[in-house]
């Protein structure tokens, strides 16, 4: 088997999570890489929806932004931005919302707004919400993909840009949110899922060669591991080849 990087393992694990025939609202960056890899491997009929209004985009190279011409040229339909949010996202038609994050907390809440405790005097001003709050609210479930570190995996996000599981299981139902929220977090170290009872993010799979201690160390809360902690299958040759072709074509 070829050598591969932790980032490659992350993209491949994220791609594998997307089922054939599903529809996926795709954020740019890591989510877009994973979704496009899934279309090239096990899920050729995965429907990609971009917030620029491209429904069923089939890009031949990785888009640099959510509004690349390639997305419009290959889409089944291009609709306005109000339409993609109101007619397509909001009613809960889309199976998976695939998001990145700057900070993610123990209950899957996402911050992409500010680092620091004072919104008006932030340590770092981040880009903001974009489509994420409503993607996180309205898709049937949400996958998050980001590199794991104490800086990004925090006990409590500085700002809730997109609601995950709030303070624990039951919060989404109490707020009337229809989607299941984050059901999977894919990192460069493993797979993390909300505990069925508490919704606390819990390590369920380690990527090959990664130690449990290493993941706990890269997490800003005391990360629990599932009793039956598994190991992610290593990337196949085919997955690696297709991922590398995809990334090369996107450069």
């Amino acid at each position: 088997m070829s050598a591969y990087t932790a980032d490659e393992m992350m993209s491949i694990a994220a791609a594998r999570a997307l089922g054939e025939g599903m529809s996926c609202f795709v954020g740019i960056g890591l989510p877009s890489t994973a979704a496009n890899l899934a279309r090239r491997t096990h899920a050729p009929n995965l429907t990609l929806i971009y917030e620029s209004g491209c429904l069923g985009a089939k890009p031949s190279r990785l888009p640099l932004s959510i509004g690349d011409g390639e997305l419009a040229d290959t889409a089944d339909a291009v609709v306005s931005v109000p339409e993609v949010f109101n007619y397509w996202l909001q009613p809960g038609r889309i199976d998976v919302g695939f998001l990145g994050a700057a900070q993610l907390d123990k209950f899957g809440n996402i911050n992409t707004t500010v680092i620091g405790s004072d919104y008006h005097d932030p340590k770092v001003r981040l880009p903001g919400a974009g489509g994420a709050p409503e993607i996180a609210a309205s898709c049937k479930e949400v996958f998050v993909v980001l590199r794991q570190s104490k800086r990004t995996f925090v006990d409590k996000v500085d700002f809730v840009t997109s609601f995950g599981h709030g303070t624990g299981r039951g919060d989404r139902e109490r707020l009337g949110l229809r989607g299941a929220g984050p059901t999977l977090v894919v990192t460069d170290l493993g797979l993390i899922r909300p505990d069925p009872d508490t919704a606390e993010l819990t390590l369920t799979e380690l990527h090959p060669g990664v130690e449990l201690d290493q993941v706990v160390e890269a997490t800003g809360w005391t990360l629990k591991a599932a009793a039956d902690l598994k190991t992610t299958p290593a990337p196949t040759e085919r997955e690696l080849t297709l991922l590398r072709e995809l990334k090369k074509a996107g450069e």
Partner: protein
Amino acid sequence: MARVLSLGEAVAELVHDGDTVALEGFTHLIPVAAGHEIIRQGRRNLTLVRMTPDIVYDQLIGAGCASKLIFSWGGNPGVGSLHRFRDAVQHAWPSPLEIEEHSHAGMANRYVAGASGLPFAVLRGYTGTDLPAQTDTIKPITCPFTGEQLTAVPALNPDVTIVHAQRADRAGNVQLWGIAGVQKEAVLAAKRSLVTVEEIVDELEPRPGALVLPSWAVTAVAEVPHGAAPSYAAGYYERDNAAYQAWDEIGRDREEFGKWLNELTGVKA
């Protein structure tokens, strides 16, 4: 009916100090040349509105044109942060920048309400997030039929909206194709509007995926070839990704930015 003006005339006539101005575009068809003309004409105290402020908004903010930004995602797409925007928010440089922050769904619906002559829009949005606590422009609303609680946002009605499109005819009818973003809504929501176009043609040949903004819904049209660069105009030119990357270096540093600004405005250093 839309009047055909030069870009300089149009900006001079339509954009005033203190106005609320939306230069819309969603990766595609960003009215960059018009933004640069606003900088050149030295407008001040603008409230800038855009779902996705990118480098032209970074430039307007760095040049001191804006006192407020209404937005939902401010970044350099595919590259990283907007450093002039960050500098204004974190260090009030060159001047303080008030922000009014929303999600894409919220901003899109605010334009829809504005275009529809309604004072507000209703959506399933913001629930559980920290955004409502930071603004008085997100409020709960109750369905009078089901009792369900939803979210209301107020209409956006810019004093002037500027967008870029591929073509107009001599009567001022505008044709636009490819990703259309929220441009139609932004134009219809505004009191005045300017559309810069790649070219003015005798006749707008119908084409797949094209929408037409009738002349009577537009205030002015200006022919500005390459007016969306370094973003792209489907059918005319591609996105100049290198320019977006190069901006990261310039925008990161106040001095570098100053040089760029002097070059744009023709000031000798």
